[in-house]
């Protein structure tokens, strides 16, 4: 436990110190919300637009943080030998993974607080109807997308390519899944793609707890799809994750 906190403190320090990462990962969703919230007005599907966007950007933020940020940092650390070096210390691998996970949870929880604060203060958006469910959604989002993030990190070969790969996945998925606005007008095949990806379902879950005050477990199908994607990422990681830089395997 002491070692977990020790590692967590270090993870937090390095995250906030590396300004590019902090800006890209933490500030970007807030910035997008500020922009989109100013552009859209009125209602989307019968709900206030600022509320729907808040849920959408919450989903985008979860993915950007726990999937994108985690994959970028893990691949970077692997390729410069940081992970390899850690493996020869007494730090248990499980403790390391736990510290990394909790660290992203902290980052995303702050992100979520930032989004809610921005929404309520600037756009008069609603506050979460079910606070406990909202907190649960934060954990669910980080768990699912962190699982996918570790899986992606196991497949991505080079530190140079990782940002590009991550963005090619995150931005289209967020766009298709309604993070940046309603998708009813999208062509059917784009909607069909979104139907098999996890982000849309995650946003549905968030909408449920945030706007309708539903329980986190109100939509088992959505939860199941989100969980399955996280589990698939984790399964890839269990088979393919390496602590060694690619060149020295």
């Amino acid at each position, binding site marked *: 436990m002491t070692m977990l906190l020790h590692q967590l403190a270090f993870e937090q320090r390095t995250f906030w110190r590396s300004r590019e990462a902090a800006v890209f990962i933490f500030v970007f969703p807030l910035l997008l919300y500020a922009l989109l919230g100013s552009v859209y007005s009125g209602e989307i599907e019968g709900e206030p637009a600022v509320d729907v966007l808040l849920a959408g950007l919450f989903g985008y933020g979860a993915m950007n943080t726990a999937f994108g940020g985690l994959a970028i940092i893990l691949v970077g650390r692997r390729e*410069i*030998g*940081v992970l390899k*070096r850690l493996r*020869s210390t*007494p730090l248990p691998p499980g403790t390391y993974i736990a510290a990394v996970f909790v660290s992203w949870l902290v980052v995303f929880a702050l992100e979520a607080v930032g989004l809610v604060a921005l929404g309520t203060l600037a756009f008069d958006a609603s506050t979460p109807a079910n606070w406990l469910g909202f907190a649960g959604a934060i954990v669910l989002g980080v768990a699912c997308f962190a699982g996918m993030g570790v899986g992606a990190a196991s497949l991505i070969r080079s530190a140079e390519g990782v940002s590009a790969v991550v963005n090619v996945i995150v931005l289209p998925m967020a766009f298709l899944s309604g993070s940046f606005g309603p998708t009813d007008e999208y062509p059917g095949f784009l909607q069909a793609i979104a139907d098999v990806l996890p982000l849309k379902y995650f946003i549905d879950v968030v909408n449920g707890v945030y706007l309708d005050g539903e329980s986190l477990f109100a939509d088992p199908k959505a939860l199941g799809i989100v969980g399955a994607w996280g589990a698939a990422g984790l399964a890839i990681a269990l088979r393919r994750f390496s602590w060694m830089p690619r060149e*020295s395997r």
Partner: protein
Amino acid sequence: MYLADMSSAIVVRDLRKSYDGVEALRGVSFEVEEGEVFGLLGPNGAGKTTTVEILEGYRRRDAGEVSVLGHDPGEAPRALRERIGVVLQHSETPHSLTVREAHRLFAGYYTHPRDVDEVIELVGLAEKRNARVKTLSGGQKRRLDLGVALVGDPDLVFLDEPTTGFDPAARRSAWEMIRSLRSLGKTILLTTHYLDEAQQLADRVAVIRAGRIVRLGTPAELIGDTRTTEIRFRRDGQLVVVETEDPTRVLHDLTAEALAAGRELEQLEVRRPTLEDVYLELVDDEGTAAE
């Protein structure tokens, strides 16, 4: 089952490892005594790093017996990782940390770490203790690697090519540091492809070539293995090299002859082979013999 006698920090018996059917190690055996600086010397691709990475617990062996401080590194037990320090050839410390924070980070992984500031002092980074890792020079980064490897107060330190890419001054100061580790009673396993480094630092050297140890002994023994002495001089501007196992008589004859003829043996040199000569000879011989 461990055959190690108590004073051996490392025992390796008939170690074998293949990658995709290519044999990287073809039966390597050696022992490293406690408190010894042991050099694993060989050209790139000879199997040095593979051997060390098996001992460090990074790679699994195909066959053979290995004991590191009484543990099987293949199981990478935590008790073993508490007692070893590792300096890898290519590894970096997170750039945004300061020197002191990096040491504190690693100190936190061990049950009985050394005092962080003492270690920073030891590796000569006291003036840089609050500098960010990314601002350090190449040599300073290697000192940092050494510092974080020492902060857990290990009994055994692995140094994989610790001075590759150093300028001469940085190398000498790294050597000083390694000698000071030895005086602390640490066992050190050093890999290098620099002969002078092995000669300067190692109590014993194993020369490894194409996955086999081709010679093992103290640097003096390795040189002593070849009995030839080389006598060089110039006659009418032409270099004459005489290799002999009987230098006293040959030199006597040469000087007597020159004195009688009233000539000078210009640029006369009598030299014993250096470790480098022996090494090149070994690596060459084995190379042509193997192919």
